[in-house]
């Protein structure tokens, strides 16, 4: 067992942290920088998970964790999760040779921003709840329906869209995945800022005609692929969350040391010392589960993988909320302002908590799976 990073991984971390150093002021609006995206490409970050044969670096989940944690610390808004982790995952595990090579290249160069259009209005956290329909025609498919929460869906050039080609609304079977050009006829997008300022969009497909070769994988069998890539995305989000939480802890501890009331630093009050200690405990537990999620993201048995990832999401969701709420509380009034950077971390943490299932949803999944260590009678 070895928790240490290799020299190469350390170098990666230092480089990414340098590139994603947070700005002094809290980020405004929903803007992100194409400039920085290019720098990510030059550093090879956008090629990170792809096979060397496809022009990638052939790195794995540990490197993704390193990158995402640094992004969490820097509150990076660039569409890395949606393009490289999720888009890249769907490309790597779902697309055939030629398409995979082409898309890997275009993602790696920074040319292509990808978004995953999956969540629908009624669906909440259930991945199999897909109603957007894809009708088979002689040349291909016609897609019709709405995806409501699509992070980075506003600027993405390529959309991966899940659709129902058969079965009832909640059925595991009958879900298919398509590559859709965001400029295709019949696609309309409404941009909005997510609660933490990440850009998002509602994507509407009005009888969008796609050729059969835009189908990813087999007809009606996309759910396992979606689950696998979602698990990888959750592992990456857990790492990002650890970055976010660690900044909130650091900011709070240094505030406790400098803010004075009643003639002494407020960190001298034991009630606040214990609260800070609890935040620290929460952070350490979260960090451990992020490492666990990273390790289990590539587990071959889907049931074990999924239970482990859910377990990590439970820990991240709960401890992240605790740390965020306490960080605001211990800052007093200043923690309630838009101007002070802490609020942006608190909001990002809240978003992470809601993405791909909240703590309760994942707790239920772990419980249903019989826990992490299944006992056989």
């Amino acid at each position, binding site marked *: 067992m070895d928790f240490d990073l290799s020299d190469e991984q350390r170098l990666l971390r230092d480089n990414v942290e340098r590139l994603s150093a947070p700005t002094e002021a809290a980020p405004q609006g929903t803007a992100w920088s194409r400039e920085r995206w290019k720098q990510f490409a030059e550093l090879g970050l956008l090629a990170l998970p792809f096979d060397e044969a496809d022009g990638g670096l052939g790195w794995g989940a540990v490197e993704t964790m390193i990158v995402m944690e640094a992004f969490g610390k820097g509150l990076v808004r660039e569409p890395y999760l949606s393009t490289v982790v999720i888009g890249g995952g769907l490309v790597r595990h779902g697309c055939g040779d030629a398409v995979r090579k082409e898309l890997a290249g275009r993602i790696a160069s920074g040319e292509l921003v990808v978004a995953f259009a999956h969540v629908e209005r009624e669906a909440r956290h*259930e991945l199999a709840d897909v109603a957007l329909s894809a009708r088979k025609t002689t040349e291909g498919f016609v897609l019709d329906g709405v995806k409501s929460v699509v992070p980075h869906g506003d600027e993405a050039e390529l959309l991966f869209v899940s659709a129902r080609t058969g079965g009832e609304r909640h059925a595991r079977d009958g879900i298919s995945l398509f590559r859709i050009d965001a400029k295709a006829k019949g696609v309309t997008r409404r941009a909005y800022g997510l609660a933490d300022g990440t850009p998002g969009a509602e994507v509407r497909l009005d009888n969008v005609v796609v050729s059969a070769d835009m189908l990813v994988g087999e007809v009606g069998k996309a759910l396992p692929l979606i689950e696998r890539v979602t698990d990888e995305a959750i592992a990456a989000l857990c790492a990002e969350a650890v970055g976010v939480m660690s900044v909130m802890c650091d900011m709070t501890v240094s505030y406790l040391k400098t803010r004075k009331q009643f003639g002494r630093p407020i960190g001298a009050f034991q009630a606040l010392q214990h609260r800070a200690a609890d935040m620290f405990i929460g952070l350490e537990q979260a960090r451990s589960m992020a490492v666990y999620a990273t390790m289990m993201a590539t587990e071959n048995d889907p049931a074990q993988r999924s239970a482990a990832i859910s377990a990590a999401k439970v820990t991240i969701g709960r401890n992240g909320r605790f740390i965020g709420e306490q960080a605001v509380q211990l800052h007093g*009034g200043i923690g*309630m302002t838009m101007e002070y950077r802490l609020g942006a971390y608190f909001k990002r943490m809240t978003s992470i908590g809601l993405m791909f299932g909240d703590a309760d949803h994942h707790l239920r999944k772990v419980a249903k799976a019989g826990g992490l260590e299944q006992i056989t009678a």
Partner: protein
Amino acid sequence: MDLRFTSEEQEFRQEVRSFIAANLDQETHASMLAGHRPSKDQIVAWQRVLNKKGWATVDWPAEFGGTGWNIIRRHIFREEVQAYPAPEPLAFGVYMVGPVIITFGNEDQKKKFLPRIANLDDWWCQGFSEPGSGSDLASLKTAARRDGDHYIVNGQKTWTTYAQYADWIFCLVRTNPQAAKPQEGISFLLIDMKSPGLTVRPIVTVDGGREINEVFFDDVKVPIENLVGVENRGWDCAKFLLSNERVNTARIGATKERLRRLKKLAAEAQEGGRPLIEDQSFAEKLADLEIELKALEITQLRVLANENKNGKGKPDPASSVLKLRGTELQQRITELTLQAAGPHGLVGENLDAPLGHNEDEIAPEWMRLAAPTYFNTRKVTIYGGSNEIQRNIIAKQILGL
């Protein structure tokens, strides 16, 4: 002992409810039901309706325009307003500076200010906190120097709620920097917001809302007749005011209303093809919240009954419990609402946005308001004496630790 309301009290509750139903502007009601904050205009309009009925200042002594209701009726009234929901009378005037003027002010001040507070002709804001003085309020630095028949005020207040709307601000200022104890050199001053040298700078809250401000005083001249009570005894006014604030921040009626609404929403929201409210763990969380709320409601009634019996002397020790638990429950309800919104809670919106855009929305309004409401409600455990300070009060003043 009988915990039930008498039939007269129940009739009274019905009377209040019918009055609100018959007189509250529909749009204001719809907007508040949806989870928006009432606007300035809505607050003013409604308080004037209440005032016309004689119900804007129900807690004031009858001679100053109060209703003479006993404490149980006043409680019922407040609960009905919160639970309807209708805008509450502006706290800074009716619950804060009004009672201070009644208790410590002179005749001229009573005549000049009280009727205008009741009718919300003057919007008041609270100038207590400063950048360096929050929990440790007595350390405040804003200085008022006597110069003939004026004070010259210099300094800064912050976190001032709705200063942008205010006509007047009541301030704690330092009139004697040499006093032996910091509490002994403080005075309570009423300052016209239009005074030259006074400027307001908005602070945007974390949810994007515009409710708090910084207020700067640069050689602001304040006539000495605006001093309330005795010079250097302003701390008495402050303590009196803060103990009222504590009782008011529990807002049990409002939490009840939000809970009722959340139950409805959770019956509509689907999880795995079934109503969310049938989800065991969510239903248990709702039940848990409701149980705590019931306990708090009865605690509040016990506090009130005590006050009814013994008069309003020393605040009941249990009143710190009200602020503490009351605000925690307000926060919990926003957490659960956000949870109920699910991934669509990510679709953020500003709480001050107007109600009901006509466009087909990306997510229902309550989902769009869930995250900003959750963010904004973090404030309730910070202001009005933070919950850490409330725990200190319980430990020291009640438990003698």
